[in-house]
Structure formats: C-alpha cells, structure tokens
C-alpha cells in the first residue's frame, strides 16, 4: 500500500485523476450534506437563473437548484457506471479468457454469442427489457452491462490468444501449473492493462447512455436528478440559457478526465515495464 501511494504520487496525472475521482465520489455520496437545496424542490419564481451566490450553477426551467441536482445526479451516474462496468468487465474478462484459451469450438460459440449481442442495438434491447420488466435504474444497468460485455470480451480474447502462445505459458504448464493458476496468475495480469483503459474510458460513455435512456423514459424517472436528465433539459432550453448544459457537462467532463487518468496510471502501475521507477 505504501509503495502504491509512493508510485501514484510520482505520477502527477494519475494523482490528478485520483483527486478528481475522489471529488466526484465524495460529492455524490455526501450530496445530502453538501447540497444547499432540495434537488426536486420547485421554485418557479427563480427559474432559469445564471450562476450566483445563491445558486452556484444557476437554476433550471422549474427553478430547481442545478448545483444540488448535479450533486444528487452523481449518485445515479456513479451507481450506473460502477455496476454496469463492473459486471460487464467481470463477465467479459471471464468469457474472453475462456474463448481465447479454450478449444476452438468454445471460442467460436462465445464469439457467436458476442456477435449476437452486438447485432442488437442497445436502444432496442432497452425497449425490450423495459417492456418486460418495466422502467427502472436496474433495467438500465442490466441493458448497458449486457451490451458492453462483447467490447471487453473481444479485447480480452485477442490478448489471451497472444499470451497463450508465449513461451512462459508453456513453461508454467511444464512446471505443472493448473489451468486456473495459469489463467489467474500468468495470463490475467498481462491482459489487464488495455482492459483498464477501456473500462475507464467507458465510464463517461455509460453515464451518457444512462442519460439517453432516461431521456427516452426507460431509466431514471423525473424528477429524480441525473446528469443525463439535466443535459436533456438543457437541450430544450438552449435558446434561453446555456447554464443547464454547462452544469450537466462539467461533472461529465471531470469524470471522464478523472477516470481516464486514473486508469492509465493504474495500468502503468500494474506493468513492471511501464513503472516510472523501481
């Protein structure tokens, strides 16, 4: 742990990423403490205001404080991002490694599964899921997770195929290492780098996807705040005021940068070849 802190502090961008991510997580989790207003409290008299001391990011068309809505929206965004990417990552890595390491018939079947999933547009999948179980944040998480499994699975498969033919894997086999040991100790750490980058860059995409699905009425229902719904409100008000869009995109930009920097830094940390010092 000490070494990890030392290493991450030697990497300014990684440190910045860590700070941004911490900022986002803390502000989302502590939204009830930090938020100056109730995020769904209407106040028509103060609608569409610009930033001021009272309303740090202004107000929307119903007079709700945008800063408070951004803080509370972070809860939805983070929940969706972590749950979807976490589950897609785990399933994708497992399936991808099986496909890459296993026999050809298993590889082919898993690839057909991936292609099938990819051939269904996410929105269509969401519509089907909503029709079956009704709109909720769980549906959104499920739909996004399922549709992003192939992205991870394919990358993991290719990486595993490369590693599989390396001499050190044969050497481990000859030493009597079990399949599980080879996959978890020798293959997984070597393919984790690109996956981490992919996952960290996926976080903003997923947040935006949640926003889109919510906009279509398939996810978070109004008046629950989410970054996506703030942005969507902002689009319809663009002729009147830019502030809702700005308020909705600031956290998205910060989250993108934060998670990308953190992901890159983690990759360097995990790869002895990329470590900046010994």
């Amino acid at each position, binding site marked *: 742990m000490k070494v990890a802190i030392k290493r991450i502090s030697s990497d300014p961008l990684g440190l910045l990423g860590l700070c941004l991510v911490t900022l986002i997580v803390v502000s989302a989790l502590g939204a009830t403490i930090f938020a100056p207003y109730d995020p769904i409290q209407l106040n028509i008299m103060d609608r569409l205001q610009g930033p001021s001391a009272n309303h740090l990011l202004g107000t929307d068309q119903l007079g709700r404080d945008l800063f408070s809505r951004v803080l509370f929206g972070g809860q939805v965004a983070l929940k969706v991002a972590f749950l979807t990417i976490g589950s897609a990552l785990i399933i994708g890595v497992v399936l991808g490694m099986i496909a890459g390491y296993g026999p050809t018939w298993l590889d082919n079947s898993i690839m057909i599964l991936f292609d099938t999933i990819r051939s269904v547009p996410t929105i269509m999948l969401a519509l089907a899921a909503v029709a079956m179980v009704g709109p909720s944040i769980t549906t959104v998480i499920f739909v996004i997770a399922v549709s992003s499994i192939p992205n991870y699975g394919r990358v993991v498969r290719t990486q595993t195929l490369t590693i599989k033919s390396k001499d050190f894997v*044969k050497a*481990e086999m*000859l*030493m*009597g290492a079990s399949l599980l040991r080879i996959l978890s100790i*020798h293959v997984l750490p070597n393919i984790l780098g690109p996956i981490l980058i992919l996952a960290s860059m996926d976080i903003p995409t997923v947040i935006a996807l949640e926003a889109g699905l919510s906009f279509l009425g398939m996810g978070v229902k109004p008046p629950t705040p989410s970054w996506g719904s703030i942005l969507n409100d902002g689009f319809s008000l663009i002729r009147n005021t830019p502030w809702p869009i700005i308020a909705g995109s600031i956290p998205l930009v910060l989250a993108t940068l934060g998670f990308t920097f953190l992901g890159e830094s983690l990759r360097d940390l*995990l*790869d002895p*070849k990329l470590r900046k010092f010994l």
Partner: protein
Amino acid sequence: MSKLLSIKNLRVRFRTKSPLQAMLQKIDDPYIDAVRQVSLDIKQGETFTLVGESGSGKSTLALAVAGLLNAAEGQIKFMNEDVTSMTSSQIMAYRKKISFIWQNSIGSLSPRMSVGSLITEGYKIHNLKDRDLKMEADRLLKLVGLPTNIKERYAHELSGGQARRVGVARAIALDPKLIIADEPTAGLDVSVQGEILNLLNKLKDDLGVSLFVITHNLNIVRHISDRTAVMYLGRFVEQGQTDDIFAKPRHPYTLALLSANLTPYPEASLKNRIELKGEVPSLMNRPNGCEFHTRCPFSSKHCDNEFPPIHTFDREQILTCHYPLNKN
C-alpha cells in the same frame, strides 16, 4: 547405471488439414511426422545431446518427452512409468521430476513476476508448504551464481545470461531427475556460453541429475555430452558415445555436420571433409528410400529406393545407412 528415460519407436505428428478439409480433398493421411521412429535411453546422471539442423524435430521431441505433445505411436518410459498413458495426477508428479530450460530465456519467464517468485513457483505449484520461499530463492540463486538481490527484478530487467541462469535456477528448484535443456546457449556471447555450460556440468555432478541437451552447436556437444544422437528429418540417423561420434562419424550426415563445424584447425581435426548440397527436404514430402539420399555425396541407386538397415557397431553406435563410413 539404471535407465532413467527410455523411448521406443516414438512418433509425433501434426495435423496439416482439418478433418473436414481432409475428407473433402480426399487426403487419407492429413499429418506430417515431426518425429519418427525415435528410440533412445538416458541413464541416471548422464548427459545426452541431440544435434541436428533447424526443423529436424529436436524441440518437438523434447516437448513430447515433457508430455506437452502427444505421441502418436511408441512409448516414453520414465523410471519405468509410461508417460504417454499417465493420468493428470501422475503427470503432476512426473512434472516435478523433470524440468525444462527454455531456448527463449527471457520469454520463458512470466513478465509480471519477480525473479524471486519465479524460481520458487514450483514449490507453490506442488504445494510444498514447509519450504521457506525466501531462503530457497537465496539458495537457488547462489547455486547458479547470481547475486541474491536480483530477486526483486523482473524478466525484462535481466540480461540474456542472467535470464538463462534464472531459468537454470528454476529448473533445479524441485530437485528434478532429468533436466531438458533446449539450446541452453542460444543468444549468448561465447564467454557466457562457457559459463552456462560449466554451470550445467557442475550442477550435473553436484546434484546427480541427467541432462537432455538439444543443440545445433557441436562445440557444446563435445564439452558436456556423454552420448549423442544426430537427428535428420525427425529420425535419428546415428547415435552413440560422443567420443565415437566425433572421432569416427559413420553416417555421412554426421560427417557433414562435423565438416561444417568451425574449428581452429579444420584440416588437422577432420579428414575427408564433405559438403552438403541442396536444402533439407520438406517434412510434407519425405524422399523415398533413405531420406538423406537427396543430399548424400555417397548415395547410389540403392539408396533412392530402399530404406537403409540399422547397423550396430561396438560401444552402442547405432546408425541407419546403406554405406556406413569408417567401417574398420
């Protein structure tokens, strides 16, 4: 001395066409033989070397011995146990008794593991919990002549010679009975080559292991080997005591290999040198009769059609040729 490893009529083959393709194209035998009719014995504490050109099946044979490739025919017996029909738990026990030194010294070390954990990994794999891994690592590094502070390093931070020594340390970790060394000096400069060979010789004497060395460098053979086999197109063309092979090569191919070897005084060391013409034939299309006849300077019509008989000379020098050299 008792037999440690005994191989009889081993055949290893690779598929060239998928079953469907073979069926559609009406190919009865969609395989190539990488190793064919190989028989050898390795005794306890002996060094057996295998020489031959690239692509002659040396590494394939080694991988088959290690159980990584399946034998299509024949028998591999290790300490009177049949390797080809082992269950997975027997294979585990077998892999504890043999170890491999890889040709690609750096590439055969897992890149995310430090040297310390690499060389003691065998203890973890085989669940030897009573060993103090740190002390074992120090002991092994000392045995192969590496400083103990190298433990923290990773494979890419090692030089070729260091990586090779780490490979040797890993190979001797579990006190194996047999070490298979695939080109143990590949990619090293001459002085380091010498160090590695001396190290192998010393370990062999100290630990009493048998060595199965694969190489195309004849000077190595002379330096470490007790017995030698010469491989051509997946077959042994000649095998015997190393001294005999060097002093009295009886197969024309052995003579050609020796002729091609660089020595300080070529004229003094070998009379009647021969040079080979042409390329090694493809495994897909083996010549009829004696498989060496396409390149052999002594071949006759006889050789083109008939597979040569096996000759046995004194001191177990065995070869397959119609016209063996140095008859008397």
